[in-house]
């Protein structure tokens, strides 16, 4: 828990807060424009864009408030080097989803588990190989064998 006395994650600088607020304002404005394009109708005859326009209006407004408060914001965490682990994890999952449709789930799953164990988790080579192969075998038995889920598979 970050509230533990063991160590609080340092708060993010105001650049992070300003960027966050700007992204929200941009998103709100884009959604607002999109809602207007859908047609907002009138209060008596609301169109498809009425509701999204109201919501994105509030979102834009709150984004501006966050922008004004950016210097005083302390509840965002600083991104540090271990954030690269998350990038690696996301990359491995993107590879997984890109391959599963064509070559089945076995190889992508084994590769994903191996990458997480060996490179993200720092486990030993032998253990990583054994666990990733074991996991895939167990998944095969459960999903293909027992539950006959139509997941793409090689064998």
């Amino acid at each position, binding site marked *: 828990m970050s509230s533990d006395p063991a160590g609080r994650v340092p708060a993010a600088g105001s650049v992070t807060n300003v960027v966050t607020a700007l992204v929200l304002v941009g998103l709100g404005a884009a959604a607002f424009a*999109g809602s207007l394009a859908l047609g907002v109708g009138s209060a008596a005859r609301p169109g498809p864009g009425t509701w999204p326009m109201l919501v994105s209006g509030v979102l834009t407004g709150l984004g501006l408030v966050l922008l004004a408060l950016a210097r005083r914001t302390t509840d965002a965490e600083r991104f540090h080097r271990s954030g690269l682990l998350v990038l690696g994890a996301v990359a491995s999952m993107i590879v997984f989803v890109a391959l599963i449709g064509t070559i089945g789930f076995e190889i992508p799953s084994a590769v994903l588990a191996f990458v997480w164990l060996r490179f993200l988790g720092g486990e030993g080579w032998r253990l990583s190989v054994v666990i990733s192969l074991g996991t895939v075998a167990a998944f095969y038995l459960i999903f293909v064998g027992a539950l006959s889920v139509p997941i793409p598979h090689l064998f």
Partner: protein
Amino acid sequence: MDSLSPVLAGFDVVLEPVNLLYCLIGVVIGMLIGVLPGLGPAATIAILLPLTFTLEPVTAIIMLAGIFYGAQYGGTITSVLLRLPGEASSVVTVFDGYALTRQGRAGTALGIAAIGSFVGGTVSIVVLSIVAPIVAGFALDFGPPEYTALALLGILLVATVGNGGRIKAVVAACLGLLLATVGRDGFVSAERFTFESLSLADGLDFVPLAMGLFGLAEILYALEERHRAVHAPAKVTNVWPSRADLRQAGGAIGRGSIIGFVLGVLPGGGAVLASLTAYAIEKRRSRTPERFGQGAVEGVAAPETANNAAATSSFIPLLTLGIPANATMAVIFGALLIQGVTPGPQLVTEHPELFWGVINSMYLGNVLLLIMSIPLVGVFVRILRVRPAILAPITVLITLVGAYTVNNSTFDIALVIAFGVLGYLMKKLGFDPGPLVLAFVLGSLLESSLRRSLLLFDGDPTGFFTRGISGTLLACFLAVALLPAARSVLGGRRRPATTPTIKEPV
């Protein structure tokens, strides 16, 4: 009694061997995943949702109830043994629970927590069985304006009572409402924010959204936090609490049940508030308040009883009004919708068998939890000894493969990953994903009620205030929304707006 016959008929269904088996499986895997550090009940249920889809509706609901109680208790195990509360409502359990663990009495703490949870849950279900049909009857008269006001108030309360900054929580809720508009418009067939994608034409699916924002996001966040690793827990012996312990905790369990039930009905932090209140009351009543924090049995019994009673009574707004009161209920709401059960005031009158099926499966889940938790604690402790680096890839694969099985589509896996990244960024930047998921679930109800009301009032928004119930609800909404803003404008110069926040997994 006539009114009792559907209740009893429901038990026949629930007690069929197949259903008992699935409830048992639900409790065990709910605890299994819930015990993984960082995964609270909402995340656990989200990850396990795909398991229930292939089953018959009644069986699926029973399994869900099992998963729900198992996941709740899984969080208790980690707060007692590792000082890691699975959710905000277990935070107070940490004080005395972990103190007991350090004295080598972890078993006592876990046993008392299981018994307290069982009593609190049961009291709550019994009162719920009586109260829910009455509330539902009252809500039958609700029209679109009432639902608009109720949904708005529900979302706002969850956003303001939750942890983290309230502006950020409302921002998260707005994002959820916007995401809910993606897809075909229900009134006129206009495609909204689909970017010409066929996969988006039917709107975003709830399951990958919840799995990503709650499940995967937690895993990614934990991946980065791993450098602050937790130590393996000690051996747990003697799970049965002694008679002296039980006598000491009895009063706390009784009071905790009542406090939990009453506060649990409130939207937002019901269970959190209940566990805090129950702990505070026990400490004040005690003749030896100095024992609290040093391993007092009542200090575990009171909050654990109260949070389970509250978790159960938060089913009332869901089952009677169709409004989920917190993030976990939002996930349950999504799961029930997929099973063809639309929670709301009509449920008890039009589909009594489903309504009582849900409630009776809660009785069953609660009983099985008590039976399973005590003998299985040793097994779960052994799971906690496995390094997170080994558990993480397995959990990720369960999530990704599970997401595929919902619709047999790889697009859903991509959605889980996208929402996982969004959830991770939100957690890093101080946005609670809970309000987003809740607002997403309520989004279409809110929009269609608002549009129907506007048609009804011929475009005159003052119509909301001239109707008694919707006017009152909206007045509450405005009070909750504007009071803190007014207070911070008036008092903002005196003290900087830095309140310590407790971050915990959902």
